[in-house]
């Protein structure tokens, strides 16, 4: 959450994009640009997006995402209720076997070993453990599943205790004596039914079906702990954490799953929180109504609510709000399944003994996805606001930084607190007999928490123009960099500064500060042409249209408010119609006395990047390397379409295209804690884990590349899905770590390789503001920072 929120905050508050970098011979991009192997790196939003690669930076819109499809054995297990929930599309793809150089060993070696505790638990499976899958047929065929279950289960002595049967497929933990077993049962009506049980499969614990089976057992275990499934995770609504000042309720819970890891099947557990509003949608609407202008109530209300998920009071279902129908009232009628008409008021009274207090409330509209048949017109349901609770956060809430702060305080657990919760869960599973039995029945038992050895790779030196620095803290080297010259930038000679009439003084002040910080950096800034405009969004755009000519290197706008349309229109014009880098600054930011020098430093660095300059570098021994970052983002305007960002370090001579493709995931299952002073802490920055918590069929590793100031650090997961570069795993890991040093918007390490973060910024700008492919003239600059 923090990563995204920070980026977003930056993106809106201070985006700018000056630049004059287009000329040939402009400074090279970071050191990584010398190489001969293109390396594609991407950060997917979900695990499904596919990557592409090509030579220059571009954005493309995808209307449809396509999946990295995986061959999965055809068996699906039905859970109670008939839904198949587990997704195991990842299983069954073995990318590692195609890469000869990592077949035997995919681990690195450099760095200092560090012992880390994980959130993984062994399951105590005996090596020879197997699951026996049988197919069961009934003769005569039986319509009723209940009857099929009852008849089969009446043969307890044969089947034993550990059995799972969905009406056709039977799983047993013990093998029956014969390949085919014939049974005879008699129904209560006196009919004789022949049951044939045929062995179809013997599954080892690592098989996908078996893993899925384990996860179903696990769900049963969690239910026995009185936890409720909401979405994928399990929560305890009976022990809520309230944040009353914002009317929020947090349900503590866990994301738990069983997966095949490098050497064995293990259970992973992580703390999860469900955020809910402790008020109904009607109460939310009411308080919104009292706070905003009536004229835009309907519009605002729809903007806030559409897309959110609600939980209904009378059943355990969640619905997405797709629309609000202001014409339908609770006193209106709808047809029941038997064809008779009933009013909503009467229905809820009859069915649930609920009396609706407000007979004028509008209706929430939700379109139900049909599971089997997507061609069938989706069914629409009307929901009563008074009977729905909001889950998650509204956009209003997300922009409320006090709320987010209070929320973070409850949700960000440090390693010690996290460990406490995990121990509690493990303890409950072992202590509560019904839960433990669910596992034991199948020969499973919750073992101890797994510890492993990771490595802390050496700290990287930051290369500046004349000096190098070894940062005190890898999280932030802005202080270490002070008074050092940046690697290179052309002078800013011809530029334009726009501000509203009343912000003239602020702009002057900013100029002075920019010049003062620019000098020591080695960045020469000329006095710009200053244009003062009226205080209106249109005025800025008009001024830009009037004053920008091809010679202008950069446009800077000092905006009075955080108005998105003003920002968007400027960015749109300067990215599409007249491509010039631009830098927007909020007047509020410039009002902070005492902060001006650090604000100016950051703005100066951003301007340098937008001009095509180079701030710092790290030493990369590989020559002629091209690094490509790809990211996908949603388009805010055209719902359903996505923006793909493609960012590459520029390079002149690629001769033999050797390629490594790495999937970068910011979210992953494992967590790592380091033991220090008898308590648990976040492992040091630069910790790499490439054993045990990894997957046998993949060339993968975990890297902690960011400093977590609060909470528990989230390792970043790297999966090298294709690699013909022949780079040793150790070099691949080190190179990845180096890449995390090169994001110019932040003088410190970040959690993904810089190209991924650049691609993210690019897609964010296009998805939020521009909605089209930016002009290619800007393509050689970091105009989107």
């Amino acid at each position, binding site marked *: 959450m923090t990563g995204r929120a920070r980026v977003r905050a930056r993106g809106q508050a201070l985006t700018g994009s000056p630049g004059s970098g287009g000329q040939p011979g402009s400074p090279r991009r970071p050191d990584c640009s010398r190489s001969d192997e293109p390396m594609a790196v991407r950060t997917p939003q979900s695990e499904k997006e596919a990557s592409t690669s090509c030579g220059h930076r571009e954005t493309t819109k995808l209307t449809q995402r396509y999946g990295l499809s995986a061959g999965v054995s055809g068996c699906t297990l039905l859970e109670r209720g008939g839904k198949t929930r587990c997704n195991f599309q990842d299983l069954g793809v073995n990318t590692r076997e195609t890469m000869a150089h990592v077949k035997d060993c995919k681990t690195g070696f450099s760095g200092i070993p560090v012992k880390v505790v994980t959130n993984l638990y062994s399951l105590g499976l005996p090596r020879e453990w197997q699951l026996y899958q049988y197919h069961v047929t009934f003769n005569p065929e039986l319509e009723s599943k209940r009857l099929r279950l009852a008849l089969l289960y009446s043969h307890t002595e044969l089947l034993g205790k550990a059995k799972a049967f969905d009406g056709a497929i039977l799983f047993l933990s013990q093998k029956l004596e014969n390949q085919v077993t014939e049974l005879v049962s008699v129904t209560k009506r006196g009919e004789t039914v022949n049951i044939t049980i045929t062995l179809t499969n013997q599954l080892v614990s690592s098989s996908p079906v078996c893993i899925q089976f384990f996860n179903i057992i696990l769900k049963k275990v969690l239910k026995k702990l009185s936890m409720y499934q909401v979405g994928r995770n399990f929560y305890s609504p009976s022990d809520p954490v309230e944040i009353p000042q914002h009317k929020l309720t947090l349900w503590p819970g866990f994301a738990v799953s069983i997966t095949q890891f490098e050497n064995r099947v293990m259970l992973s557990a992580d703390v999860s929180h469900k955020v809910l509003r402790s008020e109904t949608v009607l109460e939310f609407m009411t308080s919104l109504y*009292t706070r905003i202008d009536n004229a835009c109530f309907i519009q605002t209300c729809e903007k806030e609510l559409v897309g959110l998920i609600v939980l209904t009071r009378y059943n355990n279902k969640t619905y997405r709000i797709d629309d609000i129908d202001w014409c339908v009232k609770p006193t209106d009628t709808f047809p029941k399944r038997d064809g008779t008409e009933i009013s909503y008021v009467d229905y809820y009274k009859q069915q649930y003994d609920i009396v609706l207090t407000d007979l004028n*409330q509008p209706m929430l509209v939700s379109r139900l996805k049909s599971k089997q048949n997507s061609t069938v017109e989706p069914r629409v349901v009307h929901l009563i606001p008074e009977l729905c609770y909001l889950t998650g956060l509204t956009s209003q809430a997300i922009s409320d930084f006090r709320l987010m702060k209070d929320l973070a305080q409850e949700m960000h657990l440090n390693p010690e607190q996290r460990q406490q919760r995990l121990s509690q869960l493990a303890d409950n599973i072992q202590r509560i007999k019904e839960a433990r039995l669910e596992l034991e029945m199948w020969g499973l038992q919750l073992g101890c928490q797994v510890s492993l050895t990771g490595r802390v790779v050496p700290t990287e030196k930051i290369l500046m123009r004349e000096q190098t620095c070894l940062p005190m803290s890898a999280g932030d080297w802005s202080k270490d960099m002070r008074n050092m010259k940046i690697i290179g930038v052309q002078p800013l000679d011809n530029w334009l500064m726009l501000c509203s009439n009343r912000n003239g003084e602020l702009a002057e002040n900013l100029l002075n500060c920019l010049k003062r910080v620019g000098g020591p950096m080695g960045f020469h800034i000329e006095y710009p042409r200053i244009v003062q405009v009226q205080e209106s969004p249109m005025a800025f755009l008009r001024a830009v249209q009037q004053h920008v000519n091809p010679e202008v290197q950069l446009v800077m706008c000092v905006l009075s408010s955080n108005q998105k349309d003003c920002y968007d229109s400027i960015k749109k014009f300067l990215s599409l119609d007249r491509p010039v880098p631009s830098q927007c600054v909020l007047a509020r930011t410039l009002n902070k006395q005492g902060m001006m020098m650090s604000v100016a430093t950051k703005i100066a660095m951003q301007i340098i990047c937008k001009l095509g300059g180079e701030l710092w570098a790290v030493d990369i021994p590989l020559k002629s390397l091209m690094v490509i970052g790809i990211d996908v983002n949603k388009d805010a305007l055209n719902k359903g379409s996505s923006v793909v960002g493609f960012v590459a370090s520029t390079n002149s001579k690629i001769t033999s295209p050797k390629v490594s493709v790495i999937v970068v995931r910011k979210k992953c299952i494992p967590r790592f804690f380091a033991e220090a002073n008898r308590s648990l802490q976040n492992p040091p920055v630069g910790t790499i884990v490439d054993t045990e918590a990894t997957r046998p069929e993949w060339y993968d590793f975990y890297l902690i590349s960011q400093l977590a100031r609060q909470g528990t650090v989230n390792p970043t997961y790297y999966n090298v899905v294709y690699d013909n570069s022949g780079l040793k795993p150790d070099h691949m890991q080190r190179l990845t770590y180096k890449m995390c040093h090169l994001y110019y918007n932040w003088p410190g390490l970040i959690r993904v390789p810089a190209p991924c973060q650049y691609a993210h910024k690019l897609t964010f700008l296009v998805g939020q503001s521009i909605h089209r492919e930016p002009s290619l003239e800007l393509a050689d600059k970091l105009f989107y920072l």
Partner: protein
Amino acid sequence: MMDTNLQKDDLTGTIKFIPPLYKQRYQFIKDLVNKYKPKKVADLGCADCTLLWMLKFCKCIEVLAGLDIRENVMKEKMHRLSPLPADYLQPSERSLTVTLHHGSVAHKDPCMLGFDLVTCIELIEHLEAAELEKFPEVVFGFMAPAMVVISTPNSEFNPLLPGVTLFRHSDHKFEWDQAQFQSWAVAAATRYDYTVEFTGLGTPPPGTEDVGFCTQIGVFVRKYPKNGETVNSEKHTEHAYKTVFKAVYPSLKDEKYLQNAVVSEVLFGADIIKRRLLGNFKSECKEHSDGLEQKLKFQPFKYFMTCSKNLSLAETEKLAADRSMEPFIDGNTVYIPLAKIFSIPKVNQLCGTFEKLSNLIAGKVALSNDGSAVIVTIEYENEEQEN
């Protein structure tokens, strides 16, 4: 009452009830519950717990129990009887406990004592002769609830039902005609001091009125109010049932949830008072009152009207008169007198008494040294520097 309907397909001679008869039976019980408002209800032969599930929504019921001899059938859908996650968001006023027992109606178990209503829907015809013999003693003699409802098929109706040869269901041990059921019922009622009235569901087609309802029902009412305590202790018996399910619903009657709700309301209220005091809230309040006038024209949600009159004029004046109720700022801290907090309608309604409020928030909400005011620290919002 549901309007019922009989449809006859002339071609096949099939009789179909709309809504189906089983639904009419459940609705019959629901109507009875709404009329007599029993607090404790037990369903004997609860099968897949559908009736119990319907009854759990009846606000008058605080204890629901189910009993069945087939444990698996009971377990199949018993999860429907668990509280929903949303029930925890705004716990209800009433308390509710749902319990399922595995056992036979031929056995006595003290967990079935003290009920207001016991229902036996399509149960007795499944009993073996020996069980049926013990049934009146167990239900009327031992459980002795204020009201018992027993329904069973009326065999006189069977010729009108397609495909029914002997009994309507293969597990039925017998099916009675009207006279048989009524004489059995009257005998039991007489013996255990109950009155009984007969009714039924599923009226026969015109011209065949004599056969009576498809389902016959006896409603038994105990003649004398019971002196519960003494009788119960006398009857102390060994437990014969196995409890297979128990769910306690979150309720404000439970101190834990009440405290949670009160603390939340107090902190929410205190936060609003603080903001109002610091002036941040002024503009919002103004908009609020401006909005009200327009709302009347726009036919506002009814809800707005109720929330806008949180404090009546008289109350406001009373508040103003009482100076000790005014919140004030001292240094970095806002002091909000408990009396002021207690005047917040929701807090007032939840706690009832001032003393209760003090008890509930003790240790959960920061209070001034003398305990007379809620204190809120003012944090000056140092917005984070954007990068």
